[in-house]
């Protein structure tokens, strides 16, 4: 039975699944928060903010995620900084940080597109009614952006879940790590990786369904 090998190594696969879920959730929340802030910076009337936002996106989008993860683990270590005195806590936090910052750059671009896509008339009407810039963003621009960015954010979320497998390179015992250990113990590579794939799908398919549901409920016909 496909995936049966999961029951032969339950601790490895279930720990892997749980760590994948944790890093995905923390990474996704972090990415959305950071990405939204960066997007707002990029469209702000203040030039220094636009510059900082632009630099952030350029850097975190154009460097490989695996390099970023290594930086948060061994790069910071070389500079004398660690997320925690316990190495395993440290690599977990490094992974979550790396996920959030890297995908935050993609979220930023998506949200920026959404912000710019809000009808210019709305923005001008809000300002002319006396709303400050921040009030305009909070009550007029952002709420309308949410609807349009749900589908691309969903894509980023699914990509993020899959990218958590890179955390195995800094020692995090997530799903890919579990599959590799099982493969080295049993040599049943196909079974091990099919099991990991099934567990990933267990996360990405529901995520896709949720995103579709949200899209359906929030999308207003134009």
């Amino acid at each position, binding site marked *: 039975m496909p995936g049966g090998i999961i029951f032969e190594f339950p601790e490895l696969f279930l720990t892997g699944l749980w760590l994948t879920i944790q890093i995905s959730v923390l990474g996704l929340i972090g990415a959305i928060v950071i990405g939204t802030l960066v997007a707002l910076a990029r469209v702000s009337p203040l030039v220094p903010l636009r510059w900082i936002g632009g630099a952030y996106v350029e850097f975190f989008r154009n460097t490989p995620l695996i390099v970023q993860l290594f930086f948060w683990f*061994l790069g910071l270590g070389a500079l004398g900084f660690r997320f925690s005195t316990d*190495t*395993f806590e440290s690599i977990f936090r490094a992974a979550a940080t790396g996920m959030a910052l890297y995908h935050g750059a993609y979220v930023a671009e998506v949200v920026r597109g959404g912000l710019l896509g809000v009808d210019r008339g709305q923005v001008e009407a809000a300002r002319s009614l006396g709303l400050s810039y921040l009030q305009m963003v909070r009550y007029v621009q952002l709420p309308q952006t949410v609807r349009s960015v749900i589908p691309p954010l969903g894509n980023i979320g699914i990509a993020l879940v899959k990218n958590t497998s890179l955390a*195995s*390179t800094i*020692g995090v015992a997530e799903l890919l790590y579990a599959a590799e250990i099982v*493969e*080295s113990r049993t*040599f049943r*590579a196909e079974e091990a990786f099919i099991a990991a794939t099934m567990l990933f799908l267990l996360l990405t398919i529901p995520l896709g369904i949720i995103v579709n549901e949200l899209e359906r409920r929030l999308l207003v016909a134009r």
Partner: protein
Amino acid sequence: MRGISRALALGLTLAFVATACGTGGSTTPSPTVAASGAATKPRLELSTYQYAIQTKGKIRIGTQEDNTPFSVKTPATGKWDGFDVAIGREIAKAIFGEGEDVEKFIEWVPVVSATRIPAITDNKADVVIKTFTINDERKAQIDFSDVYFRTGQRILVKKDNTTIKEAADMAGKTICSQRGSTSEKNILTATNNAARPLLLDSYPACLLALQQGQADAVSTDETILFGLVKQDPNTKIVGKYFSQEPYGIGVKKSAGGDRTGFVDFINRTMITLITTGKWATYYEQYITPVSGDKKRTPDD
């Protein structure tokens, strides 16, 4: 004598080529000097896999890019070097002959511990030479040549470490090793699952973790640890061998006769390397600088 013959063969070949170019390519260059078969390929049996490789014109050798002193790829030049690499080149020479630059017959396939068996079973590499410990579980998956190197597992710690002296002391400590290797499994067996394994992709990364204090020790085969000590003299190797690690060359199991004669061929080549002293020379070239000892055969 061989060197002079080869130089003569090369000189005459160049002369013929120069003549051929000069006369518009009407003559084809052919070395006619009585060299010891330097420019001709060895004759191999038709039904064997080594003959198939010879016909194909390329041998795919799987090894690791950063496994000092066994296999290292210099990023700047793209050149491979190391003990395992040298053995690989010798096998290629046994198939393609000594005369030309054997490098053009080799396709180096980068592998790590976690991918070396799939590389063989999925037919991505003809041989894998990568500090590959022979054991019964692996023998069920792939074939191994005879032992070409012997070592054992030990522990690397910082020079001022006094808490880890033997394998059992690793319990409760963060021990770094390579994911998917026998080393990481041996650590758990030796400490009865009480060690906390930090499994990374390579030993240089483990060394970094040790230096930064993010790992208490690194544990793997002694020869790899020698390479790490060379990189960082502020470390030391402790403990007796707590495992025996006989290295072999990994080859796909013959299915329907597709690897006929290959393992025997590799074994014969290895015996030749040992009896002609080439094995000892490579040991002295790559291993002695880090281990300080000399060996003439793998069983010394």
